[in-house]
């Protein structure tokens, strides 16, 4: 395999299929790497798209604003690519698109740029400030953060997603952690092992099934918590709130006060138990809803 000989090929092709806009430069770089090579991409503006493919090579194409410089290099031990803007305050967008080995571990950092990843199964760390993040195709390990942009993720085995105010939508995964301050969170899954959603004021919504042996926790200070699950739910349910109200479609039980002004709790077993569903809020309302057959995944 080439990845042992570390043959690296790097060249620029300044021709393109379509002419770049005035002042823009079109770039292309190629490099032979290993199946699991770590790849780091740094592109502060515009967009970065990464697609996994079944080849041991990295191909980077893109358009850069005038004056910006592309740096790109590395070996099977690691690849780095990125855009250096002529002026750090420059917000002219650079658009990068990379093909990488599917099993690669990819790290992407942006500021205002959007990040899109498809079909990378190795590992993924994506970070942007105000851009959107979209991940399709279940990376085994995924960390995604945006301060303000929306994050949409198909989780693989392990996923952690974080925003300040950006909305978060996660599907699937086995071990999933989601945290936001004010963003709205939705998590849809039916085969996870453990999942934890938390917010300060953002609403939290879970849709799907709670598998036997799993643990689902939703915790918010002031956000509304909605759990929409099939009527066949089988879990130990523990809801605690201080000032919130609880709507429970799974029985006639209602909140009872805890001793010593410790808030109010609703605890019961749905079906035969066998999983943990834990909800904790300070003042957010809690809704435990039966999914209609249509919306059940």
């Amino acid at each position, binding site marked *: 395999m080439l990845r042992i000989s570390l043959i690296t090929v790097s060249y620029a092709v300044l021709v393109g299929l379509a002419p770049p806009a005035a002042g823009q430069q079109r770039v292309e770089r190629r490099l032979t790497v290993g199946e699991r090579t*770590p790849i780091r991409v740094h592109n502060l503006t515009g967009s970065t798209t990464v697609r996994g493919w079944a080849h041991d090579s990295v191909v980077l194409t893109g358009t850069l604003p005038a004056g910006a410089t592309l740096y790109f290099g590395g070996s099977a031990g690691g690849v780095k690519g990125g855009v250096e803007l002529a002026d750090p305050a420059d917000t002219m967008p650079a658009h990068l698109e990379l093909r990488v080995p599917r099993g690669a571990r990819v790290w992407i950092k942006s500021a205002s740029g959007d990040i899109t990843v498809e079909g990378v199964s190795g590992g993924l760390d994506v970070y942007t400030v105000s851009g959107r993040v979209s991940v399709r195709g279940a990376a085994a390990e995924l960390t995604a953060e945006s*301060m303000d942009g929306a994050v949409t993720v198909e989780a693989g085995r392990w996923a952690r997603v974080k925003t*300040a105010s950006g909305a978060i939508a996660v599907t699937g995964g086995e071990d999933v952690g989601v945290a936001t301050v*004010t963003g709205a969170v939705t998590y849809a899954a039916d085969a996870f092992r*453990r999942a934890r959603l938390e917010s*300060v004021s953002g609403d939290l919504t879970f849709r799907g099934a709670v598998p036997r042996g799993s643990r689902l926790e939703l915790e918010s200070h002031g956000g509304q918590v909605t759990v929409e699950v099939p009527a066949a739910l089988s879990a130990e349910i523990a809801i605690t709130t201080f000032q919130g109200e609880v709507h429970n479609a799974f029985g006639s039980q209602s909140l009872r006060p805890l001793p010593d002004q410790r*808030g109010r709790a609703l605890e019961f077993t749905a079906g035969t138990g066998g999983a943990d569903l834990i909800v904790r809020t*300070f003042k957010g309302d809690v809704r435990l809803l039966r999914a209609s057959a249509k919306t059940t995944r």
Partner: protein
Amino acid sequence: MSDCERIGVLLDDYLSGTLRAGDRTEVERHLEACPTCAREAETLRRLLADARALPRSIAPPRDLWRGIDARLEEERPARSGRRFIRVRPRLLAAAAVVLVAVTAAVAVQLARPPAQAPLAGGPAVTAPRYAAVAADYAAAVRELEASFVQRYDRLPPETRAVVSRNLAVIDTAIAEARAALAAAGPNPDLETLLWASYRAKLDLLGRATKL
């Protein structure tokens, strides 16, 4: 852009006294009518005031973290029956410290095995430890706030607005949880919520600091 977003972008210049008269009047009117923006202005005012008293460099709050970590460790056996998934303060501490240096953060993110990352809610801490842990968190927050303030001028106005708005929401949550705890006494669930808000604040400050 909503009114609040518009005002959020202007707040910084407003508080620095560099806003044009017309805009200043608009901001003042809005602050009188909008408690959310008024709180945000208050948070900003405090951050800007702190900035004037800052040293040029700040060591990461390692010792504080050790304190928090040790106290939480002491509490664990007592609460084993509740099966809360526990936060790993040491890792959180490592993360908070690492966030200050982007290059280090990159290395850690790439190298980190998933099993080590904190998923968890905080361990609830019972009565006598509460005040000490709360004080440690507050101190850690202050340290990161100081680092954040140093970098504040370099952030784009939109980012400042986002960070300030979210900090204001967190501060309100912390104040509410603390007030409830003060009224009700020791309460593991409430403490869990309070630690979560503190962690949210540390995390947001940490991220804002590495921008």
